[in-house]
């Protein structure tokens, strides 16, 4: 049974310096509030893992919290570049960033293998590309047909953090809308933190929803609006204007630092 905690307690209890941490969310339900709490608690030397490192990881990379990034697409969707991500890779600012990159199919399957406690995943992909020589992927023949396949190693983060719409008091979690790869990331991880829009007395069954039982989750924290400026389907709306504004805020190092100080670090956590 998951423990109901505050966000401050959950991050303090589950995330240590140097951990590999997956804050997942595929354009939807991105755990912004939890990522910001990691920054306020000054977690360092993290290996950040996420298929689509967007604005949240841009902020964490720009603050120097990450030693390594494992990812498959690093852009601000529909807007353009992630300037802090680019600055770290192109110019090593504020520190050099080691990268391991995959394709979406490779990373989704690596999480699924991690969730299944398998050592690797098999897929058709990577073959013929320059990525093969630059990442952890190996060509293997199918043992039955001889077909050329590719294996990628399972992803098993030390910690997975996801945001969902609701949980009950036993920490059973329900999320709906675009499910992304959050269930796989949680099940693949050693420690698991879920932030939710609301705690309810009883989860109301919903067709098509993903339910994750409290007995595979360590901590659940109620954080209304915890995915903003991303969104929680049916509860909050995606703040597209902020994603556009981020392009200007993040372009300049000083403006970025000032924005983070004012909006993330300086904010007294009320929870």
């Amino acid at each position, binding site marked *: 049974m998951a423990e109901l905690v505050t966000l401050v307690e959950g991050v303090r209890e589950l995330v240590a310096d140097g951990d590999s941490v997956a804050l997942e969310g*595929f354009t939807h339900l991105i755990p912004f509030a939890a990522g910001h709490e990691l920054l306020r608690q000054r977690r360092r030397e993290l290996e950040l893992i996420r298929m689509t490192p967007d604005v949240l990881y841009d902020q964490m990379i720009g603050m120097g919290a990450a030693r390594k990034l494992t990812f498959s697409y690093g852009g601000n969707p529909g807007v353009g570049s992630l300037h802090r991500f680019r600055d770290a890779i192109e110019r090593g600012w504020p520190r050099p960033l080691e990268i391991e990159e995959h394709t979406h*199919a490779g990373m989704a399957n690596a999480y699924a293998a991690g969730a299944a406690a398998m050592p690797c995943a098999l897929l058709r*992909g990577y073959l*013929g590309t320059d*990525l093969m020589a630059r990442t952890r992927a190996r060509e293997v023949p199918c043992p039955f047909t001889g077909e050329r396949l590719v294996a990628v190693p399972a992803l098993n983060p030390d910690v997975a953090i996801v945001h969902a719409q609701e949980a009950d008091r036993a920490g059973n979690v329900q999320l709906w809308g675009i499910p992304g790869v959050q269930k796989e990331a949680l099940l693949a991880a050693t420690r698991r933190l879920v932030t939710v829009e609301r705690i309810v007395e009883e989860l109301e069954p919903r067709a098509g929803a993903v339910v994750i039982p409290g007995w595979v989750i360590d901590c659940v924290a109620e954080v209304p609006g915890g995915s903003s400026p991303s969104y929680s389907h049916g509860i909050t709306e995606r703040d597209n204007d902020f994603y556009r504004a981020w392009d200007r805020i993040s372009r300049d190092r000083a403006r970025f630092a000032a924005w983070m100080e004012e909006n993330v670090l300086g904010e007294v956590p009320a929870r």
Partner: protein
Amino acid sequence: MSAAATPGEIQTVVAARRLREARSVFIGVGRPSTAAILARRVHNPQLVLVYESGTVGAKPARIPLSIGDGELARTADFVVSVPEMFNYWIGAGRIEVAFLGAAQVDPYGNLNSTVIGDYEHPRVRLPGAGGAPEIAAACGQVIVIAPHTRRTFVERLDFCTTVGHGGGPGTRARLGFRGAGPTAVITDLGVLEPDPGSRRLILTAVHPGVVPDAVRRETGWELEVSADLRVTEPPSATELDALRELISR
């Protein structure tokens, strides 16, 4: 009487026409998404729009900013997880047409969306592969949508993110790819298609007012011009009005 179509509008209209007969199309954000939504409105109301965020059969009334906007999920026939999207729908070859963009396109329709310059010390770090390599391997056919400049159309890619026709005939079969690969590259100047023999891209259509030499000037290799070079049919009033109305929302 509306203003004449811009090159970008012609590009979008031409891309939309390619979806007249298609059952399903895979799309990213930007011009591909606009073209596919336009196709549903003017050519093919049954067209199934598939976004990699997991929304299948989305019916957006407006152009979404991200592939995961709430409207896509709200209007979809169904929504799946990312592993299901890539394994059951894309990987298994269930999507007919894929629209892809890229920072660089080479003569065989191979694509770079990873780095400009050296991988270890890139001049420009681009977003990376995303879903493109497996989409291009498995979808029925690929249509590349890109701006026509020498920066984009290069003899050699700085990094091969996504295989189109590889090194020529036989590459795709050797790699076990099941889709047909790039069947067209639609730009703001014209349309390139692979030569059936060599698989190299040749110029098969120019948009109204564009001469072949202008296209060759903006292409970083010796671009061959098809003997049956066509001139793109200008956008109809219906197409243009629908496109402009869509963008104004």
